[in-house]
């Protein structure tokens, strides 16, 4: 007899649905706030003192991502990869604006 391959389906508790929908939405919304505030500060439209709020939103986003991944029962490896992705997301705007300012300096010269 052939081995039967079973795929385990995650069971989500009824009370977890709303937190899952909300936390996953907040992953994106907080992520947007992070880059939006970071961008506005870099453009000079907001003062430098607002920059910590950008990082607070990144922190909230990362927490929501972890919470959400745990609630949908992602496997431990995926959760680790998602956290590494969040670190990359933190670095990305820094890298972009660094390259952008350097290229603009060269362009203006």
């Amino acid at each position: 007899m052939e081995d039967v391959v079973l795929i385990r389906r995650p069971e989500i508790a009824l009370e977890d649905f709303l937190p899952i929908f909300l936390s996953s939405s907040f992953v994106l919304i907080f992520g947007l706030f992070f880059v939006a505030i970071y961008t506005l500060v870099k453009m000079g439209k907001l003062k430098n003192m607002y920059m910590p709020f950008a990082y607070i939103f990144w922190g909230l986003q990362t927490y929501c991502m972890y919470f959400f991944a745990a609630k949908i029962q992602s496997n431990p490896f995926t959760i680790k990869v998602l956290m590494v992705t969040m670190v990359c997301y933190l670095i990305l705007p820094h890298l972009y604006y660094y390259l952008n300012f350097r290229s603009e300096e060269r362009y203006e010269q």
Partner: protein
Amino acid sequence: MVNNLQFESKRLAIKYFIVAAILFGAQLLMGLIAAIQFLVPGFLFEVFDFNVARMVHINALVVWMLYAMIGSVYYLLPDETEIETVGIKLGNLAFYILTAAVTVVVLVYILVQVGPASEFTIWFINEGREYIEAPRWADIGIVVVVLVFVFNLFATAIKGKQTGIVTVLMADVLALAGLYLAGMFFTDNISVDQYWWWWVIHLWVEATWEVFVGCLAAYGLIKIIGARREIVEMWLWIEVTMLFGSGILGLGHHYFWIGTPEYWWEIGALFSALEPVPLVAMFVHVIYDWGKETGLKEGSEEKTMNNSPAFAWFVTNAFGNFLGAGVWGFFHTLPQVNIYTHGTQFTSAHGHLAFFGAYATILIGMFYLGVQGKNGIKVLKATFASKMAISLITIGVLGMTVSLTIAGYGQVLVERAQMGATWQAYFVSQSLPWFVQGLGWRLAMGVVTFIGFVFLVKDLLTTSKSLRHIH
């Protein structure tokens, strides 16, 4: 009315835009009929059933967007390549053939509706494949017409100037046209069949169409606010890389339903999570470019925006793309959640906002660029009708999305989680007060959207006569 367009390619684009706008109206009318049928199941029973209204609603959406996309390429080609489109006569012929074919197909959908479920039905009535139900003769015809379009784009780009926008378009349109072939053959195994079919719509909307929108956004920003080409094209290339990567692998989040190996859950989940990143980047790029360009031109007499309605639609695109494709996509499509949400009103909520936010908005923006070019308007300002159009259509679609999300939430909890997706569960959830009231609000918001569409048509047709425009 005087046509100020110097290039035949742009004149052809206007024809595509006109048919696209007509099909957009047909899509909304069919949506209203289907929305009424949800609440009053006997409405037009056995005359124009729900399955037909829904099919025409969805197909009209796909086809009007393809029309507007082809029109947009014909519109921007002379600007980018600095020459007339090669093979423009062939392009015109293809336009009339495509329009005749679409008319016949829609009439068959509406008047004939069903066939004997044999080869005859597949060839002459419909293929029964959601979103791309065209009968096989039309399927083959569409391929021929699209090949003409692809040839025109490539031949023109090779002969004329090759900007970054045109180069990305060439790669993207080739993929867009090629993917259509994946939905044209049948296999006996329904899972295998669905596997291939999903490629068409999902790689279209999650990869090729998104890149296409990136090209239009880049072109629009240059045309409307004079953004620097170096900046928008740099972003375009980054978006291409990210969207092809996240779009293709993120597609794995759908594979849960078609019997592919379990590792696709995790690959699909991870890359789905990355899919919104290019969308966020696109949004940031719009703010950043706008801020930089207005900043550079401060104090000068030069107008920094020459088409306010188009710019308003482009900005709506940045928000709508993020909300519809991003937020509404992310919270319900990961496999672990999608097992409960698949095929509920959640899907419908996501579909409505994503198609509108990511695609309809920017294509309507292109309509305005077409009107500006055709009427020779240097600075096109917003009118009362254009403000009403964007406000009512956006509020209408957002309202529909929220209503459907509420209906879907009730459905997920009762039909799927509590009652285990049985036949009885389906009917119980259909009578939930949240579900019924949600669909009632969806209908009301659909009417708001349609009124907005009427304002849009009025504005597009009368904009050159308005005294508020500065020529």
